């Protein structure tokens, strides 16, 4: 057997066989590219208004038409991908770090620590997520950062529970006891031994959560609690388009499509990763 058959390599090989996941990654890279190079590739600025071109259907000049202020929909969608990806990544990072830490500590130390932490998580789970997010973002006020915090906080318990379950299963393994017999500290064992062994389910959950967070951010923006105009957010664009849905349906359709394609792509990636990271499913 050649050296360096790392898990990463096997995972990549398995992932490549999954066409849906590959497609998902292609879409994701296009999105990331458009977010990074928004200034270069978008034909107009996101706030450029042209009162001669209000609510124009798609044409050669405005590929996806214009909105009620004469702004180019395509350009706004491209700028909007920035927000969505940012919110998705950072909100999930918040819940991954906080929830992961809570779950890891609870699972590893067990006993009373675990009970207290998990009961707090249970209390949070008892509150409907959308309600909690609305409360948090109206308390903090609108804005990008607050939106991310609100979305992030709502999915902390899910990560905490997942983390705790994985830690519990890893903790009982003999190599953890071996690590303790080596004289490794609790912190070292958690960070170097337990976390890497729990990575697979967390990576999958994170990917799926990014999709969820994007949807959630769109929902909050739709309700007017997220990103404030004129900055484009896909949910906010949907909300703005609502009065014109009979006359200019494309105004609702394109942001909706953008949201949908992103979510589907991320879910495909998540599913693909789940299969690829689980060696037991090897055929």
């Amino acid at each position: 057997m050649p050296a360096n058959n790392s898990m990463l390599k096997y995972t990549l090989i398995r992932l490549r066989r999954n066409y849906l996941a590959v497609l998902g990654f292609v879409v994701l890279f296009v999105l990331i590219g458009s977010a990074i190079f928004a200034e270069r590739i978008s034909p107009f600025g996101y706030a450029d208004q042209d009162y001669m071109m209000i609510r124009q259907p798609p044409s050669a000049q405005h590929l996806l038409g214009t909105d009620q202020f004469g702004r180019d929909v395509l350009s706004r969608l491209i700028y909007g991908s920035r927000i969505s990806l940012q919110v998705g990544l950072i909100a999930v990072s918040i819940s991954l770090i906080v929830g992961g830490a809570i779950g890891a500590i609870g699972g590893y130390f067990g006993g009373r620590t675990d009970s207290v932490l998990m009961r707090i998580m249970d209390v949070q789970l008892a509150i409907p997520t959308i309600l909690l997010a609305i409360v948090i973002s109206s308390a903090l006020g609108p804005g990008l950062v607050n939106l991310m915090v609100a979305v992030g906080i709502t999915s902390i318990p899910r990560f905490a529970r997942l983390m705790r379950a994985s830690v519990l299963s890893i903790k009982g393994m003999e190599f953890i006891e071996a690590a303790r017999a080596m004289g490794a500290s609790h912190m070292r064992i958690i960070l170097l031994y337990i976390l890497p062994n729990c990575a697979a389910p967390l990576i999958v959950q994170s990917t799926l959560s990014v999709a969820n967070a994007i949807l959630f951010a769109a929902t909050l923006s739709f309700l007017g609690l997220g990103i404030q105009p004129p900055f484009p957010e896909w949910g906010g664009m949907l909300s703005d388009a609502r009065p014109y849905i009979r006359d200019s349906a494309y105004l609702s359709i394109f942001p909706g499509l953008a949201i949908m394609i992103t979510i589907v792509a991320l879910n495909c990636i998540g599913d693909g990763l789940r299969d690829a990271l689980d060696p037991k499913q090897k055929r």
Partner: protein
Amino acid sequence: MTSRDTSVLLDIRDLSVRFNTDSGVVHAVNHLNLSLHRGKALGFVGETGAGKTTTALAILRLIQSPPGQITSGEILFEGHDIMKMTEAEKRHIRGNRIAMIFQDPMTSLNPIMTVEDQITEMISLHSNLMGNEVSKRAREMLALVGIRPERAKDYPHQFSGGMRQRVGIAIALACEPALLIADEPTTALDVTIQAQVLELIKDLQSVVKTSLLLITHDLGIVAEICQDVAIMYAGRLVEYSDIRSLYGHPMHPYTQGLFNAVPNLDSPLGGKLAVIPGLPPDPTDLPKGCSFSPRCPYAQAVCHEKACGMREVAPNHFVDCYFPLGVEGGQRS
């Protein structure tokens, strides 16, 4: 047995460990006294559940609490009581001065670290070596246990069971510990590999000059490697002596039962294996007297009332029995 001379590396006095479980208090180790001299190998023999592993974990202070609890005793290691150490001191001892080889090499290695990294981990936890020196030392250790250096970057799943156990040995010996605890190191391996691994432990013990506490239920292994042997039954030490004396004259009825239970190549085919009648006592409900008394063919009324306690019956031969076999006043079948 509890002398205070400097040749004693490990001195366990009156150690009791219990586990508080839903079905009652499990008395895993009861008032155990045991000492181990520097450079010596002590075989620690007993059946499953006798408390051998619990004793080993107690020495490292690795008993999960709750449910485990060390209720009494002191464990003197190099003259210091491990029971009184702070967390940092315990971490310093673990791996560095006392290392452990685990039973199942399939699960005792971290699946996502290369074997070299796992040895490196041990070395960097306990020494001041830097960068290249650490990895050089790790490769030396691998060479010592007979694993080629080009395998150093491989992961545990790419090794066979025997090789993994050798990696485990390399990790345990990387810091040249004063005491090596081997917890049934060959139980999970097949017979030919067992011989290899035992040979390796035996050789390295003299190279690294470490003391060895070998936990096993195989009397043959003990005879091959150890100088001293301690027999444990239901959380108590029942007999302790050097190999020659104990194998020559097993004095405790339980020890004798163990020897009788070892299958013999000369015994007639189709014959039944000798067994000790009865079952080990329920550790949540130990007998009042000697814990072996319910199964002992020689038990007298006094045995059911009060345990005898360890006493030196012959020079350096300790037995926990009123009527040691083959001794004046004892009984023979």
